[in-house]
């Protein structure tokens, strides 16, 4: 576990050694605030809450998180540094976890920088800060889910662009798993329990239930399992194809 920390710190430092971190944070904050004020009608709603932010966050994450996750492994593979990393005395699990955690912590940092919105609603009214905290937690879990999916897609290819497109597509499917758009593709031929199972995979359903301020163990478990599953898939994909 010692190695997880070493790899995580190196990865985090590399975000800030390139323009990536700054560009990501600036664009994220610009879009998050623009969505909240314009599309989310922050003022017009006259409600002291952050629903106008959290309602759009999944869609913002859908494009920004894959942009962050695409480099996780595809870049290592493309530059050959994966050979350097995997011939150090570290396990694949430590490397996958270290890199994932770095990306997750970075996302948490970007998310935390939306705090002026929270200050604003507290200045304007008396929001339910418990619900806001829950929504932040839900957003973080959602970002973790997206990152794990993106990590897996990044492990499949040496092209960052391909990794990005695959990750957006996979995240979109998971986001919309509960909607007719995805379910109709299965309804015709799959038995009802399978359709129900797919519907229950929906990111959005679990995110929405946490966002309402109800922290259900099942929702937490869902995200924990989803993240574990995709990180495991990342490790398997790397193990099979790291030298290709």
């Amino acid at each position, binding site marked *: 576990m010692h*190695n997880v920390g*070493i*790899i995580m710190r*190196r990865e985090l*430092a*590399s975000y800030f*050694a*390139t323009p990536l971190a700054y560009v990501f944070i600036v664009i994220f904050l610009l879009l998050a605030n623009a969505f909240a004020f314009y599309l989310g009608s922050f003022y017009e709603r006259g409600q002291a809450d952050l629903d106008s932010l959290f309602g759009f966050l999944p869609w913002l994450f859908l494009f920004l998180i894959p942009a962050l996750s695409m480099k996780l492994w595809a870049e290592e593979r493309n*530059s*050959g*540094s994966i*050979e*350097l990393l*995997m*011939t*150090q*005395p*570290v*396990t694949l699990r430590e490397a996958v976890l270290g890199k994932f955690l770095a990306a997750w912590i970075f996302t948490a940092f970007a998310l935390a920088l939306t705090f002026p919105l929270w200050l604003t609603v507290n200045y304007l009214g008396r929001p339910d800060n418990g619900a806001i905290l829950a929504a932040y937690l839900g957003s973080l879990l959602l970002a973790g889910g997206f990152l794990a999916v993106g990590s897996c897609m990044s492990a499949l290819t040496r092209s960052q662009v391909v990794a990005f497109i695959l990750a957006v597509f996979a995240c979109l499917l998971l986001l919309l798993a509960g909607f007719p758009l995805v379910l109709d593709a299965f309804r015709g031929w799959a038995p009802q329990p399978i359709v129900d199972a797919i519907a229950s995979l929906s990111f959005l359903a679990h995110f929405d239930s946490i966002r309402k301020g109800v922290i259900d163990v099942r929702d937490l478990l869902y995200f924990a399992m989803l993240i574990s599953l995709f990180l495991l898939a990342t490790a398997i994909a790397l*193990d099979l194809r*790291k*030298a290709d």
Partner: protein
Amino acid sequence: MIKTEHLTKHYGALTAVEDVSFQVGPGEVLGFLGPNGAGKTTTMRMLAGFVTPTSGTASICGHDVESDPIAAKAALGYLPEGAPSYGEMTVRRFLAFIADLRGLEGARREARLKHVIEHLQLEGVLDQTIETLSKGFRRRVGLAQAIVHDPPVLILDEPTDGLDPNQKHEVRTLINDMARDKIIVISTHILEEVDAVCTRAIIISQGRIVADDSPAGLAARSRYHNAVSMQLEQPSQLSQARAAVAALPAVAQVEVSERDARLTALPRAGAPILPALSELAARTGLKLKELHLESGRLDEVFRTITS
């Protein structure tokens, strides 16, 4: 000790490495030779635990690379082909990162970092990012990370590729310095390097070992082994000299290079012909610029067994 038994790697229908078995002990510097695509890098990657063998086994200091990979990797310093690293990191941070992964701590960590930085002359570029460095410096950073934990076994994939002659010399000196108490495997396609640093050479072609010998032993396989080469002062005497040399009973064949007025006499069955030739030169009054005994030409042996 490095040990491989029947090491084999297939990529689909393609055979990269086939039934490679060898052992390397302390004090040996093994040169891995072969044409491009012969399987050198794949073999080294299997030893380093980066590529999983299709069949066969490999172990580093008794640790199997597949069943006990962490211990095997801990005993190993590895320079991958092309010396990849993290371009956005400074040399100082990169070496510190590797030292941390290698589990170096406290005073020993400082001492080892200082040692490799001094030895590979990296002081001047410590705070430069690796992507801004020249090829030679990048290679040295790669070598520094391979030896920072003072491993008993070193595997270096083309350590001098892309270096200028001075840098090549430095790297070879470094390898020779470390050779006494370490096991070193280097791959190269530069034959002079084998003479300069290796105690033993394995030639690999199309995934198979085709020769495993000392550099001198390999050179002895050359048809130029014990051949005598003489350079004449007067090119006009060339045809006369050629006839006289060819007439000697111990000489099997004579090769002539008009450009530098040089004759090379190949002996029959490795017999010593130097005395006979120097005597001939004295008797016939040939003026020689140079007369020397060849030990054999590695490039010729290499071509013969790999093509």
